[in-house]
Every structure is written in C-alpha cells, then in structure tokens.
C-alpha cells in the first residue's frame, strides 16, 4: 500500500465521524431537539477541554484507569498462564476445557451483585469483575495460539538440545504471541466497557460515576463528557497496545 492510498483511506475514514458531528450540530441548530436534551457538540467539547484541565476530573480518570489496569493485568497473567498450561498439559486441559465452556457464556455482569456482597463496594469487586470479563478472550486465544504451534519447531528445539522446561518459554510462548496479543486487544476493549459499567452501578468515583451523577441532575453536557472520555481512552490504549504489538512481533513476517 503506498502513502497516497493510505492518506486517502484516512480521509475517507474521517468523513463519517465528521458527518455524525455535523448531523448532531444540525439537529440542535435546526431546533429538532431542545438543548437541554441534546447539547450542541461545541459545548460538549469545550466542557471536555475544561474538565481535562481540572484536577478533580483527572482524579476520576485515575480511579477508572487504576481499576482497568489492575483487572486487565490479573486477566493477562491468569489467562496466559492457564491457557499455556491447558495447551501443553492434557490433565490440566481435561479440567479447564469443560469449566471454560460453562463459564465463558455466563454474563459476568450478573455476577456483580455476588461480588459486591463478597468483596464490598470498594475497588476489589470492580477489579474482580473486570478481570473475570477480560480473562476468557485472553485465555482462549492463548490456548488456541499455543495448541497451534508447529510440532516441527518443538522437535527442532529439542534436537538442538533445548531442555524440556525451556521449550515452553523459548518456543511455545513466542510462537503463540500473535494470538495472545489479539486476545489481549479484545480483553482491553472489554475492560474499558466493564469498568465503566461497574462504576455506573455502584461507585463514588470514576468516569461511570460521573455519568450517573450527571444523569441524576439532568446535566446533559456532563453526561456526554465521560462517554467521549472513555471512547478516547479506549482509542489511546488500543494505540499503545498496537505499538507494543509491532515491537514484540518485529520478527514475524506478517502481523
């Protein structure tokens, strides 16, 4: 793909977002919706800029990010660990497979009341919910990636004298890396969504709480600000993960 095609792609991609904002502005300016129900985009973005400069708002973002990262990290560690173990060990596989099959389709949000009762209203219950939701995509893609590793690679490593223990970290883990990172990407988006929802249901701080607090007092402008913030956060985190991916997978032919 040459640079020109790429830039025309970007140009084309900006169009629907610009159209959406124009439509939003249009609906307000032509009076189809009262400003109290749908504030004009300009007002929302000015408010967002104001909020980003205030320390209180940054504190709320910090609370959300802390929960998001704590939950996501737990999910990555457990997901990659269990996924690898299930891929290389038949006994672990026999236990993990049916349990995952049962637990994966359970809507985790429904477990939130139970987590509240067990862990209280503080960070712990939200972090657990995020971890529980992000765990399965990461676990499954690790398992999938690790069980697809070519047997020849393992044999060659063994022939070259790699001890059995090291094969896992020197052959299987790197070979499964693209699949693991795909899982992490899905898990990250899910973490964004879940942390926000958990904060909406019960919380005293965080972006989700801001939305609920604004909704209770009918501050429509303030309702849009956290929504746009979480969307931006998702984009930024996704971009960071993409950077990490290109760095980690620099030896791979195609990504």
């Amino acid at each position, binding site marked *: 793909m040459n640079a020109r095609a790429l830039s025309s792609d970007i140009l084309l991609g900006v169009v629907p977002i610009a159209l959406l904002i124009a439509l939003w502005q249009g609906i307000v300016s032509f009076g189809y919706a009262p400003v109290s129900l749908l504030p004009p985009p300009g007002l929302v973005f000015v408010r967002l800029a104001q909020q980003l400069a205030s320390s209180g708002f940054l504190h709320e973002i910090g609370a959300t990010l802390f929960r998001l990262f704590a939950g996501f990290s737990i999910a990555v560690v457990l997901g990659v660990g269990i996924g690898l173990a299930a891929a290389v060990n038949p006994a672990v596989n026999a236990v993990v497979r049916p349990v995952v099959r049962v637990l994966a389709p359970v809507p985790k949000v429904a477990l939130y009341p139970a987590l509240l009762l067990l862990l209280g209203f503080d960070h712990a219950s939200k972090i657990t919910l995020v971890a529980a939701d992000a765990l399965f995509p990461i676990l*499954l893609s690790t398992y999938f990636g690790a069980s697809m590793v070519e047997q020849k690679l393992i044999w060659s490593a063994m022939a070259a004298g790699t001890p059995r223990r090291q094969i896992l970290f020197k052959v299987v883990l790197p070979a499964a890396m693209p699949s693991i990172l795909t899982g992490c990407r899905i898990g990250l988006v899910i973490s964004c969504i879940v942390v926000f929802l958990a904060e909406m249901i019960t919380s005293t701080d965080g972006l989700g709480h801001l939305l609920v607090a604004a909704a209770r007092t009918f501050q429509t402008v303030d309702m849009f600000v956290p929504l746009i913030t979480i969307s931006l956060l998702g984009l930024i985190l996704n971009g960071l993960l993409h950077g990490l991916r290109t760095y980690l997978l620099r030896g791979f032919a195609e990504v």
Partner: protein
Amino acid sequence: MIAPRAMLSKAAPLLAVAGLLGIWQVAALILNTDSFPSALDGIRAIPAILGDRGDLINILASLRRMAIGLSLAVMLAIPLGLMMGRSRAVASFFNPLLMVIYPVPKAALMPVIMLWLGVGDISKTLVIFLGVSLPIIYHSFQGAKAVEEKMLWSGAAMGMSAAQRMLRIVLPAALPEILTGCRTGLVLALITMVTSEMIARQSGAGNILFNALDMAQYDTVFAMIIIIGAMGIILDAAFERLRGRLVKWSEPRFDIPMSFA
C-alpha cells in the same frame, strides 16, 4: 472402549457445573455469612421466582427485547460487514467510526437514550441492538475479506452479477465466521439486556436481580444469578447446535469463540 470416553466428554460440562456448585457450597459453608447463601439455598429459591407470574412475565419480556434487538442487529450488521469486507472504500469509510464506538459501553448510552425515548422497550431494544451489532459487523467483515478471490473471478466469468456473487459466493463462504460473530453477539445481547435493565430499573431480569440486592433478599440474588447464567449457557449451547447444522462442512476452528465479553 470409545463409548465411555465419548460419554465422558459429553458429560464434562455437566461435571464442571456440578464441581463449580460444589466449590460454591463449600465456600459458603466456610464463610458462613448471611450475605453469601450456599448453593443449595440459591437453587431452592429458584422455583419461587419462576413460579411467580409477575417475575416470569418480566423475564420473558427481557428475552423478547433481546430477541428483537438481536434479530435487527443480524439483519443490518451482516450486509454491512460483508460489503466492508469486499470493498476497500466501504471498509475505510466505516472502520474509524466503528473503532471510536467500540470502547464505549453501549449500556452507558442508556441514560442518554432514556432522555430521548423514555425508559420503555424502545430504548432497551435500541441499546441491545447497538451492543450486538459491532461484533457481528466485525466478524462478517473478517469473513468476507478472507473469501478466495479466484472463486469470485470464476463466478464473474460465469456471468454472475455483483449481487449474485455476494449472495451465492461471499455469504456462504463467510458463513462460519459470521456465525461466530452471532454467537458472540448472542452472549453480548444477554449482557446488555441485564445491564440496561439495571440502569433503567423498571422491569426485566436485571431489575429483579438488583431489587433483590437492594432489599437484602440474598437467596433471590443468587437464584437470579443462576437463572441468568443458565440462560447464557443454554442459549449458547442451542446456538452451537444450530451452527453445527448450518455449516456442517466447515470444521469449527475452535469450539468457543474468543471474543466473548
């Protein structure tokens, strides 16, 4: 020798359920607090909920909203995804927009949508529709992108029109991937259904769950969790059977889709 093994692999999910309930029971007996009833107490409270006319109507209304939202999403998302997969221009037109929307929790739009459309069925169905559409679009897109160019050329050489090629070549070739998206969508629909109902507390399964929490009826809370969890497992298993019939020819790459939320 094969028969007992096959039976064991069929019974494995049931054993897993039994094992999980067992762990719960033991944990509850050890912790021994009011707010964490044992598995047996939770199961015992289920008939009371399902036997109650009002509750049952609530749960069925939830499922109806979910079904409507899901079907609307399937009807709109699959054609869009397929077109994105086959045309670069359409893909680069929609991709950034979808990337912006993806990390926004759809149920978080509920308070905003409620202001416009009220707390009734329409807002909740709309939210479910929005939540379900994205994975289906994404998977249809991936499926259509992976269709072999040669088959389309042969189709064109045989005089098929663009629409015919889409319907007779791209759709069947992408079907396994589309169905994976639908399966993810099904579980997401259930999640969005529960969350939308606990934000707009008016009716539905999510409402029963969180009302019970507020009124400290812990048995009911855990019974509702079992019911909602069972809905997820049953719907997923039923869909898996349907998928097995529709795409018999395609070996499933993996028996659980990865993009569960």
